[in-house]
């Protein structure tokens, strides 16, 4: 059977049909569920129509504390793991004995589910966990250190960093490997020592990768649930934990959707910042 449409339109139809399974899936489940959350945040139980009343909760101290706490977790995890990932990336540029072994060891956290990792590390860091016992045996401390369920989020940070170092390394190393090795030679030839090569050539040229990795880890840590749930304190609680508690324990869908929307919007803001910065870097304005 021949459809009564022009060749051009038939091509368009073909492309549309080809894209439908993939794009359709994303459009349906991704966008629709996001929209549902956002729309739900403008509705209130027992009230018809739309309202912004739910958002008054955002201004309440517990909610503000949650936002700040989550931002703190996000930033400290993102830059904390960068502190380890970046030097490791430089190390991996060199050839040395045991490089392959180290390379596989570093990647282990990628393959261990966050939940499992959290349990293991929480046990290790707990007041009567291995770390505190050892430190007390060595007479380095008198009282156990509060490293988990603490209000500074140290436990969360440690787990996030552990989990995200290989993740950041994968992204940064991919970018670093695309840097022409002659640039490093050129810099050395022009008098740069190893540190200056890193500072003036490798880091600036890896900046797109560093930026992506920082933002992705920020979003993972900011929106992550298991780790703050298990390793976080009773107060303040991270936004995803607040959302989970509101919905499953308080059956408070109003608050739940507001938290969800706040997380989505924050993520979008981060993406916008990233796009802005990336453009600047590519234009050569930064560095």
């Amino acid at each position, binding site marked *: 059977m021949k459809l009564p449409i022009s060749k051009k339109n038939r091509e368009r139809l073909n492309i549309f049909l080809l894209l439908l399974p993939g794009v359709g899936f994303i459009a349906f489940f991704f966008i629709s569920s996001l929209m549902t959350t956002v729309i739900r945040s403008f509705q209130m139980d027992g009230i018809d129509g739309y309202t912004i009343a739910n958002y008054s909760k955002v201004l309440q101290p517990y909610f503000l504390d949650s936002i700040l706490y989550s931002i703190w977790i996000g930033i400290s995890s993102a830059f904390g793991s960068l502190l380890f990932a970046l030097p490791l990336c430089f190390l991996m540029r060199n050839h040395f004995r045991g490089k392959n072994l180290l390379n596989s060891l570093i990647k282990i956290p990628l393959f261990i589910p966050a939940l499992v990792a959290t349990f293991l590390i929480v046990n290790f860091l707990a007041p009567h966990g291995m770390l505190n016992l050892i430190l007390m045996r060595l007479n380095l401390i008198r009282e156990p250190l509060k490293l988990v369920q603490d209000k500074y989020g140290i436990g969360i940070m440690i787990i996030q960093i552990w989990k995200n170092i290989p993740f950041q390394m994968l992204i940064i190393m991919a970018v670093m490997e695309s840097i*022409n090795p*002659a*640039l490093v*030679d*050129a*810099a*050395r*030839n*022009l*008098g*740069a*020592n190893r540190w*200056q090569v890193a500072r*003036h*050539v490798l880091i*600036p*040229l890896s900046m797109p990768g560093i930026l992506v990795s920082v933002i992705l880890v920020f979003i993972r840590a900011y929106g992550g649930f298991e780790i703050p749930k298990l390793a976080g304190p009773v107060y303040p609680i991270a936004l995803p934990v607040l959302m989970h508690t509101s919905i499953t324990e308080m059956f408070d869908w109003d608050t739940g959707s507001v938290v969800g929307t706040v997380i989505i919007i924050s993520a979008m803001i981060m993406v916008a910042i990233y796009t802005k910065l990336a453009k600047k*870097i590519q234009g*050569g304005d930064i*560095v």
Partner: protein
Amino acid sequence: MARLTINNLVKRFGDFTAIDNLSLDIADGEFITLLGPSGCGKTTTLRSIAGFIEPDEGDILFDQKRVNDIPPNKRSTAMVFQSYALFPHMTVKKNIAFGLKMKKVNKTEAEKRISEAIELVGLTGLEGRFPKELSGGQQQRVAVARALVMQPDILLFDEPLSNLDAKLREKMRVEIRELQRKLKITAIYVTHDQAEALVISDRVVIMNKGVIQQIGKPTDVYNRPNSAFVADFIGTANFIDGTVKEKLEADTWLLETEIGNIKTMTEYQLALGDQVLLSVRPEDLLMEKGSENTFQGVITTQTYMGNFVDYHVEVAGKSLRIQSNGKQLFEEGDSVQVHFRPEDCTIVEMKDVNQHETAHQ
């Protein structure tokens, strides 16, 4: 400015010997080209001089001072890379200023040197551009300026023109040569392009398989190649096998060859019966009757190239390549006289293989 001495340099990569006991002495202000096919060790030698490669054996000396243990950033060399290796995130000016910044040259001095370098290579007005906004030739100039601004003892060039088109390449190689003459900086230039090597250098070092085959002025290596490899690599050559038949004068010999008797001039001490390989350049073969070394041949192919005509002429069953200017055009099938002067045929190899090999066994 410095004199560069390389003594017995050896570099191996696994089982592969990239440089095999190489020694070289380069005078202050001299322009030297390392020429050879890929894998001959020329780039490895250059990178060893720059300090990127640690040689396994041997010494590298700048002005008689051993530099083997000095890291690349402390050696006074400046290199122009094949890929230019311009920093893509820096403007032209920042690229050129980079080395001065690393060496902490004071601001006013740096500014002066940068503007001089920019003017010298003709980049005035482009200081604020990024490398990707420049043409290949302009990028090349930035790379040269970035090296010159360092006022290095030794300038290193790693096939710097191979990414440019033919016209620009010819222009740039003359410019590089003139700059070097003006600044009198010792320069080492790596290339696989024999024409480039002949145009640009004071002396050419021809390398093969990690070993120096011949060192000499461009005219020497072209007119008096010391081996079949050199004769073949620099320009084109007709190779003719022959046996020494008679000594005519102190340096003039008569050889019996596959195309007939040939009179040749050589500094080599020959003995009657020695087997030798002769090389004659295609442009030295003349299609006219001469007083000596004249042979009868038939043209098998003729290719018109504009500034010259490329012929293949069959002489006594052997095909000879002849290049002549296109003033007198012959056709395929024409019968011609082929002639060359005794001084234009060079003995490139002593081939009395039988004697030598048995002597070694």
